[in-house]
């Protein structure tokens, strides 16, 4: 990935049916300097956001198991949508590597990273670096130092 992100301007969608988990993710992202954060309480709401071409989406952080539509459904919707070609996707799960079939499916739909619950801020940061690139890490460290 050679593209340089100005991460402060990135638009991030956070999807989790647990309000507290969603809240914590948003607080971490805010701490890292992100300004544009959209939140959805389930996959169904997230699908609406994905389909809405007026909404800019650079990164989606979504829980896997949710009512209505799960994380995999959201991931598929993004990968099928030509307007979302550059959108990155981090899947949040508490299942570890047990559900191999599901992980294989997610890999087929080009998931960019997994974040396993429970996670610490540092782990979230690492995943963001993996997905967004090293330039992002430099900017982020400057942000955290300031």
């Amino acid at each position, binding site marked *: 990935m050679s593209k340089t992100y100005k991460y402060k301007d990135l638009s991030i969608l956070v999807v989790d*049916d*647990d309000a*507290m*988990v969603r809240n*914590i993710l948003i*607080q*971490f992202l805010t*701490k890292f300097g992100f300004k544009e954060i959209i939140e959805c309480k389930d996959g169904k709401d997230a699908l609406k956001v994905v389909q809405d071409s007026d909404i800019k989406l650079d990164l989606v952080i979504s829980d896997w*198991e*949710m*009512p*209505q539509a*799960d994380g995999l459904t959201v991931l598929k919707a993004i990968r099928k949508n030509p307007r979302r070609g550059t959108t990155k996707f981090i899947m949040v*799960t*508490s*299942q570890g590597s047990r559900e191999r079939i599901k992980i294989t499916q997610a890999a087929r739909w080009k998931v960019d990273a997994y974040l*396993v*619950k*429970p*996670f*610490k*801020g540092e782990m979230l940061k690492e995943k963001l670096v993996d997905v967004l690139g090293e330039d992002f890490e430099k900017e982020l460290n400057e942000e955290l130092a300031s």
Partner: protein
Amino acid sequence: MTAAKKLAEPEIHVLPNKRILVVEDEPLVLDTYKGILENESTGVIPITRSSRSKKTTQIDRNNFEVIYCSNADQALHAIKESVTLKKPIAMGFFDVLLEGSRLDGIELVKEIFHLDSNIKAVFVTAYQDRSVDSINELLGEEYSNRWDYLNKPFSQGEILQKARNLTSVWNLEREKENQDWIIQDAQSRLMESDRFSTVAAVSRSVCHEFGNLLVHISGNAELHRNGTETEKSEAFDVILKACDTAKTILDKLKHLSQSPDFEDQKTVFDINTPLNVAIRLLEHQFQTQNIKICHIKKDTAPVFGNPNSLLQVYVNLFINSLHAMGNSGQVDISVDKRGDQVELILHDYGPGIPKEHLERITEPLFTTKGNDGTGLGLSICKEIIEIEHGGTFQIHNHSSKGAEVKIKLPVTKEEVENE
């Protein structure tokens, strides 16, 4: 869990066993036995069904291995040796009047039956001095299927017939013991694996909840450890609440992993208690699959039994419904107390049970889930309800849609213990 008596692992025998004991004090009669049992062929010529066929075949030689004894002590010695060397004797011919022996034939057989629990006996008597009834009385009812008798003078055919029949019976019994043990062993392994698959299904649900709770705890601690007093205090509240929720889930999970084997775990409880625990354990799964739980009727009813076993039943049934309904549906639950019985109905809105499976669905090892199912879920449910709790367990299709499980349990008069 099973109420059936556990079988011991049977001894390994080389089958077929054709060892025969002959106890006879008359040397002349003993020679007759030798002539019959050691002949090269059986001498039996089967009757051919077709009158046109002139071909007759001689049945292969019997290959009996015969031990001859002329008195009771020799016979007892032979039996003891056969038991020690694990070379059991399948059957024996016993003269009833054993002259010069300290025991007569019947007393001898009684002692032999004590030493060897499988051997069969044929009493051979010259004077009909013992009637069948008197032998039965002397040996007792418990041995009635282990002996037969024959009057002297006997024919070659009679001796061969008894020898062949009783050695066959002995061998078939051992084969059956082996088969029974293999089946029991396989069933107990499968039951174990089924329990694990139930626990696995619940643990997936619980795992997700714990993941979230741990995010509440670690996230709040990390984000607010350097915050203001108010922020810290709010974070602590969230953390403590998460701990309480985790403890509740953990308590319920413990119930499921406890072995329901112990009789002393029987207690009086409200039928709704394990039902609510099951719903709570699978709550996340129900939510994820968009399945509504609808309480049609919720009577309280004290029952006597093992709440952990019933929890297993409910979890099993819910998992079946979850499998059947896929990504949306409803489970109606009704607890209806009628006099001294309580009727619990679980009705799901899945596709129901195919007609051809209805009769067999509670049979052990019957499964429609291919390699994913052990086919023990419903048979264990039935066993827990009917054998452990003296109730009835029925499963059928609902007249409108889906499958319906009807459980009836006797209501106890005792008060429910406060947990």
